[in-house]
């Protein structure tokens, strides 16, 4: 099973080792509003969930994404 870090790394093409809990639009190249849409699509596909728009808006960094996905029963 892929991890959230792996999804972030593959969506934005950054090296896996550079992604951590605090990775966010401020620190990852390409994580702009369009990038966020791509990230959500990739997370939904990888973890087989459909994420509520309100939650999408609150996915401010990798730690936050982990928290939100956990509420869907996903351990990434």
């Amino acid at each position, binding site marked *: 099973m892929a991890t959230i870090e792996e999804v972030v790394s*593959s969506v934005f093409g950054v090296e896996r080792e550079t992604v951590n809990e605090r990775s966010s639009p401020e620190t990852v190249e390409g994580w702009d509003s369009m990038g966020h*849409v791509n990230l959500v699509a990739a997370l939904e596909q990888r973890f087989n969930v459909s994420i509520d728009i309100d939650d999408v808006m609150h996915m401010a960094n990798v730690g936050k994404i982990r928290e939100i996905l956990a509420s869907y029963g996903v351990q990434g």
Partner: protein
Amino acid sequence: MEDRLEHRNKRDADIEALRRVYRQCKEAGRAAEAHDALNHLVELDPTGGTVAFAHRERGKLGEMGGRPVRIAILSSYVLDPLVPFLDAECRRAGLTPVFYVAPFNQYTQDVLNPASGLYAFGAELVFVALDVEDLFPAIRRVPGVDELSSSRTEIRATVTGLVRELRARSTALIVVHELTFTGSSPHGILDNRRGDGLSRWVEDVNRDLAEDLSAQAHTFLMPLRQVLARAGSAQEQNRKLYYMARMRHGDVALGELARYSMRYVKPLKGLTRKCVVVDLDGTLWGGVVGEVGPEGIQLGPTAPGIEYVDFQESLLNLTKRGILLAVCSKNNPDDVVPVLREHKHMVLREQHFAAARINWRNKAENLKAIAEELNIGLDSLVFLDDNPVERELIRQMLPQVLTVELPRDASQYRSMLESLTDFELLALTKEDEQRAGQYQANRQRQALERESGSLDAYLHSLEIRAEIARAAAHHVPRVVQMLNKTNQFNTTTRRYQTPEIERLVASADHRVYVLDVADRFGEHGLVGSAIVCQEGDTWRIDNVLLSCRVMGLSVETVFLKRISEAARLHDVARVVGEFIPTAKNEPTAEFYRRHGFQLVSDVDGVQSWAFDPRASRIEDPTWISVKTAGE
């Protein structure tokens, strides 16, 4: 399930490996290989994230020097995410694209304001993507008959008006997306039984647009419904994209849209392929004819065999728009010819092939010979062969040839062929429809050439007739087509599009000539064109071009004779012919010198050759009977 997981893991590993290759090439400063790695990466992983990554990275690498193309996108919704997908497709075609996307919901202002960013950008191609819900929001709430009828009129006026304004200020190719309504109808299954049904209304609106746009030069309506159908409706009804970001299309749809868009980009940039070279065993029929004989091959009205008939029909259809077919097969001609001539279910016969190489030689050599025989470039060929070893050989030896990854399953052949974006024409001319037959006649000419003792005797025996005329409006599509696809006999390779040629034809300061050629074996059709700019006491020959089919007959002399005579009549002191050398127009290098022009300058790659029409004369070749229509 486990298999699928394993497959996914392998794919992930491949993608990761490609990313590493990319990073290494980038760090080592090997830009060409880095671009190549990105091409492979987006092919393997065409997701929004990866495609956008590749697009960002291209900006950091040095450009590859591919031909530029300038593409503008005007949309009523957020279509910015199409850019990286289109970028990937253009790069795969060897182009270096530059994009302009109109600011959100400002497409109208952009079109109407002559000082807008759109016009400053100077697009060669403009895509206009309007969504029916944006043009007619009431469609979501059971509109009545009157409302539907008035909005139909309104949408037609809006879109047609927008295109007209755009056309008045730009020579770009305009491609308008068809309107689609992807939601369910509020009328359910009753929708198409009612006067206020939505499916019928959408059909009507699109028919209106098709009618108006087909009356405009250089303007197309893209069959968006057909394009999106390939992506599947689940993708298309992803309303969340719209709620979150005002986007209308997901990854798969954007990929399909970008791919379909290349059907307009490629002919505009002269990248239409001219000839499909097919293998025989395993490609046009199932089985090996040398082993099982003509009656043993799989080809007929039932399976297995029907899939090959279907594929052959699709190839035959290509010839109707001027694409040539050729055979390249490792076989004994004696085994194959009976199939081509007599097999009851063959769709393609000898006369459909413009060239054939049925022998045991290396296929790279054979493809080169075919290109030479047809007098077209290797980059005009598409190669279809079921044998992966042959495909790999051609990919390695002749990368200019488009070698298609033919599916393992022959029942996919037809749809694979029809998904290629390399056979589009912006206009179908009489010459396209007749092309296949003309290559037949060419073979007869070559036979005659072999029989004739000398070149001179051969040329005289051809009984060549040439007719030169000033171009009229109905010649424009063919002239534009030649300007954009002729590479060898093309003095300046200046590419003009329909609006510019229409203007030159109507202008009092320009002369556009067209040349029609025929001989004893048939008509070549309109095969040459010349553009002259009358600039005071100098007439500048902006371009002379000739189809490769009539090179070597000296028909080009007819242009220079007419131009110099007309110049003398107008008491013009100087005729100046320009020549811009390219990688392919070597056959034109001596054109002006041979006709007595003197090289007077060579600045920034543009040679100017001068001729005094009052002092010297140019004569038509003795073997051509020339008819001049008008001055």
